[in-house]
């Protein structure tokens, strides 16, 4: 099963606004792209046309690993508002 299909198994209620914001001026200079390596949901990717880093916040598992892994501090990461985000049924 692909990671996208795995995330589709989860109960997630998405807010209209993202709880993750990226500082593209920092992302633009980053070579390591730690966020891409660590994200268990495979949610980070580089938009080849614009050169921007993109995060699909809608599939976020709320582990916070990207926030810790980005040593350049380009990621502002908060919990989604109450009522939103992933709701684990097993945990």
């Amino acid at each position: 099963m692909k990671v996208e299909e795995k995330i589709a198994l989860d109960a997630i209620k998405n807010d209209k606004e993202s709880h993750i914001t990226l500082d593209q001026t920092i992302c633009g200079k980053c070579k390591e792209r730690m966020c891409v390596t660590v994200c268990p949901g495979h949610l980070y990717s580089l938009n080849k046309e614009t050169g921007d880093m993109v995060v699909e916040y809608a599939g976020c598992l709320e582990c916070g690993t990207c926030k810790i892994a980005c040593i350049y501090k380009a990621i502002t990461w908060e919990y989604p508002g109450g009522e939103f985000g992933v709701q684990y049924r097993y945990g």
Partner: protein
Amino acid sequence: MDKIDAVIVGGGLAGLSAAYKLADAGKQVILLERGDAPGSKNVTGGRIYVDPIREYLPEIINEAPFERHVVKEMITILDDDSSMQLEYGNNKWRKEPYMSYTILRARFDNWFSEKLMEKGVFVIPKKKVDDLLWEDGRIAGIKAGGEEIGAHIVIAADGALSFMAEKAGIRKPLEPQNYALAIKEIYKLDENTIEERFGLEPGEGAANLFAGSITKGMFGGGFLYTNRDTLSLGLVVGIDALIRQETPLEAYRLMEEFSARPEIKRWIRGAEQKEYSAHIISEGGIHGMPKVYTGGMLLAGDAAGFALNLGLTVRGMEFAVASGVLAAETANEALDKGDTSEAFLSIYEKKLKESFVLPDMETFRHSKEVLENKRLFTVYPKFLCELLDVLFTIGKGPKEPLYKSAMTVAKRYVLNWDGFKDIMSMRKM
């Protein structure tokens, strides 16, 4: 400002335990949980060792909806194309009181919160706490969604990322070397099949740890626990190790490769995947801990960095329950005395030192540096697998004496200066 006795941020084990004890002491408590219900944002491996916490919450531990009591410990050491498995069982684990149970947090925490409501605690779900309230340089409550709730004391039990500790200015920055990422998958399998497949009697459970080439030399390992009618399969890997890979392999791919191993497929065959989750684990031990109290606030559970990885045992939930109960005792005494100053709240640390929490964290203060040794995940698994390989393999031509073959393998991997240094390092744990 009108104030209630205590606000608890976070409906995990630490927060729930604290609320339970404060309610027992007759205090007014509100518990705020950002998920739809307590447990819905929580992930465990998971198993819980109940002996350390039975005396802290006897009624809860005795009635809790755990999954299975663990009677069988399995360790699987993996090289790229080979593996060895060790199984250890002991009849004493089949007798009550049981030592440890597998657990699923969505079910457990929600049940626990119902027990709190029966005691009159206000458990408010879907409420994310945004900020702290301050009064005379001391924490005096919280802000949540535009509302303010004044409280004489705040217990921050908001998990390993603790935004409350950050806002209070007592948490160290979150650094990659102090945390590991855990990815977990839930597979549905009927009870009888689980029991047959793992060789268990009804109600009994198994725990299987995996180490070796599955983490490509990185700090970490895999786990598999049998729940009542599901399996918890997961992989843990250090965040620092992940971002320092020379040729980066994404974490989700590591998980895919792990679950595709024949050593895993044999257990999950025919099972339907039901959930995919991830969480961070504090691995910093006592070095990674923040200050656990400040004027008007106490930290408990993961928020306080209470977690310990000893390789074969990984613990966090017992510390969460015990620290939650001790935070409640501290808060109760502070409320009775009308003194929630930092000076008075320092008795929390004293209580933690008199319990098992801080002594365990102290005893195993070097466990991280011992376990971070790359050779544990590369050289030793290779050594064990190759040793068995030379002993079991019969090829063309005359076979070398077994002792000679074994020594050749041992010299290649472990009977050397690095091996000696590893043994010296192990003594720190």
